[in-house]
């Protein structure tokens, strides 16, 4: 008996397994709950933006509406089209959901983080790219033209927007000097005060944020980049042939992706769980979770807000936007990030003797100069790229007067 006890609890493996299972379960449960909350925020938020009420009948303020819908989808018949590729059709939602949930492994909930790996940022980008495969599987296996078109669009869009997304993250990785998500968040607490240390409050970080956020919207297939499931053109895109629980899984994965995007953005640019009192031992952890959720949900509200404003892009405009606007900006941002690092941190050893005159590395004077230089570069770059795009980049159609 004692030997058995030793075998299970004396040695580390069982306890480790148990803890991982617990954490995974917690993430999955909280993920579903978050998804319910997000659908509620989206529907009611959009409704109020359009001067109407939205779902407010089930439960207080309609908060239980997603529960009612979950019951509905669970009880619905699970249909696979006769001509569909059965196994791929079945696996596609699994692949999509699995890749999305896997991304949560390194996403920090305030001060709580499931796993802190030293390539966390890279891992997030890599694992969330896997869901592109799932989209293509769903589109192909459905044996439906709408689904296939949606799947192809999804893949093209995801691949295109991954590039500005990753390159804008490169700037942050350069600033932090580490790919660990925890380090990224720690870096934003470092030098001065609290809120102004967030990456978004530097010129470099701001441009990176704008590019990353827009690219992430496209990655998460949020309007105005929801071409893969454009209702008015493609029924529901790659989700056309899915019903019941499979559709619910795709839907869940969609919202989890959106939440992951918000969480990563909050962590990388808005200081994660940082906030007043978030470094107190135990209470601080609770506070940091609250801060983190507030920031993430706030970002999600911005997503909804954008959805309420911007109409869907045409597919060619979408591609133009990624390659001709976001990518140049992200590249310029890498350049100004290196300038920022050189001005604020380097000394005579690295060949920046000029900067020595301004003061010690990290001094206010050097920061001010770095602010000025990178700010000017980024603003000028933004206007130049926008100007080029406005005049000869994206084809604009003018209404020509018809011959009288």
């Amino acid at each position, binding site marked *: 008996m004692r030997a058995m006890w030793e075998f299970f609890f004396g040695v580390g493996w069982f306890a480790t397994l148990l803890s991982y299972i617990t954490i995974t379960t917690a993430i999955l449960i909280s993920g579903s709950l978050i998804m319910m909350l997000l659908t509620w925020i989206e529907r009611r938020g959009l409704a*109020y933006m359009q001067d109407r009420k939205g779902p407010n009948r089930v439960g207080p303020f309609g908060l239980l509406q997603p529960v009612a819908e979950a019951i509905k989808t669970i009880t619905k018949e699970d249909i696979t089209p006769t001509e569909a590729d059965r196994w791929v059709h079945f696996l596609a939602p699994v692949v999509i959901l699995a890749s999305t949930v896997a991304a949560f492994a390194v996403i920090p909930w305030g001060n709580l983080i499931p796993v802190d790996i030293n390539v966390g940022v890279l891992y997030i980008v890599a694992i969330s790219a896997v869901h592109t495969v799932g989209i293509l599987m769903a589109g192909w296996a459905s044996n439906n033209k709408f689904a296939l078109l949606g799947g192809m669009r999804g893949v093209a869009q995801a691949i295109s927007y991954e590039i500005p997304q990753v390159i804008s993250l490169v700037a942050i990785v350069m600033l932090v000097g580490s790919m660990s998500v925890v380090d990224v968040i720690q870096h934003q607490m470092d030098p001065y005060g609290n809120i102004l240390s967030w990456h978004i409050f530097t010129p470099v970080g701001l441009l990176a944020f704008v590019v990353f956020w827009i690219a992430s919207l496209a990655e998460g297939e949020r309007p105005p980049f929801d071409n893969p499931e454009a209702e008015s053109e493609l029924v529901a895109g790659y989700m056309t042939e899915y019903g019941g629980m499979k559709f619910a899984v795709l839907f869940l994965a969609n919202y989890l992706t959106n939440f992951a995007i918000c969480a990563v953005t909050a962590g990388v640019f808005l200081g994660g769980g940082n906030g007043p009192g978030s470094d107190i031992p135990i209470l601080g952890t609770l506070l940091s979770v609250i801060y983190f959720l507030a920031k993430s949900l706030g970002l999600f509200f911005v997503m909804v*807000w954008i959805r*309420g404003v911007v109409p869907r892009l045409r597919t060619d405009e979408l591609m133009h936007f990624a390659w001709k606007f976001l990518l140049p900006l992200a590249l310029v941002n890498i350049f100004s990030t290196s300038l920022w690092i050189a001005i604020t941190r380097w000394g005579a050893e690295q060949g920046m003797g000029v900067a020595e005159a301004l003061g010690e590395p990290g001094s206010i004077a050097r920061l001010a100069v770095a602010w000025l230089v990178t700010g000017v570069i980024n603003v000028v770059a933004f206007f130049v790229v926008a100007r080029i795009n406005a005049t000869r980049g994206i084809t604009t159609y003018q209404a020509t007067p018809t011959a009288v």
Partner: protein
Amino acid sequence: MTATPEQQTTTQTALRPVGGGGVVVVERKQPRQSYGQGIAKGMGVVIRHFAKSFTTRIDDKSDQVGMFTVEYPEERMELPEAYRNMPILLYDDKTGQELCTSCFQCERICPPKVIHITQAKDPNTGKPVPAAEEFVIEYDSCMSCGLCHEVCPFDAIKMDHFFELSTHDHLSMDRNKAVLDRPISYYQAIAPNLWAAVEANAMKKLQNNIKRRPGNIGVAPHMIGKAQKALPTAGAGGARPAAGARTAAPVAAMGKNMPPEKVERLKSIRAANAAKRGGAVPSAEETLLAASAYTSATASPESGLHTAESDAGLAPSPATTPAPATGPVAAVGQNMAEDKKARLEAIRAAKRAQRGDE
């Protein structure tokens, strides 16, 4: 037409201001928006709507910002007077007399043909009476076009505002007169101006029609017995009829159009009917007599029932409106002896009438 190019050009130029396909250039304050200005502006507009939706409501229809949702089962919008849903029939509040004269205009014009009218007949003469015996509308197929309401010369059929008609019972959507009837006051409540516009004319026509309706014919089913005897007080132009004209009317009508023998015979029939009602079981002789008396009238049990009903309706107030021609009838029902006397008299009268015919 052979027109030179110059002529054509001048014609088109002349047409332009009217809207002949020219390009209209609208001057805007900001002719060109770039660098995300447009999106920023849009974001501002949307968030203003978002914030205002919590605090304000759209009351005036020209308002642009604010919540416009009306949470239906709890809140209801006021329907415009001219809103139309399903047709209903109107009857006068006091007398219970329906405005419908069964002129069949609505039945004819109804595009899906869902209106079915049976005209009422005088049980004594078999002549049509300006009233509807039965009036059925199939609500399930009605398309709410309102043509029946527009065509009705007597303003008897109107469009209701009630729209919560969903039901599990399909057959209940065939609405008969008993269900369709609404008092004028109801319509006045939902469409006061519309009714005020037609009231005088409608009431005048109703008065004229009531004079030609014997008994309870044309009275809304649930108003029978409850209705007042008085004529409806007309609106602006209606002439006030003399008291007691209604009870006397059928007889007067008989006298106008029929030979005296016929009048006599009809009287006897009335008497026979009254006797039938008064006496316990009509004898074979009586039945025979009655049957022979109904030479021209329909002798269907239904119309017979109607007669009894109409008599019952008349019975309560014979004293206030004494009609000399119906004297024997008026006496009926007071006691058995008189009853019997009346019956005998009626039989005699019937025989006399028969003889007269021969």
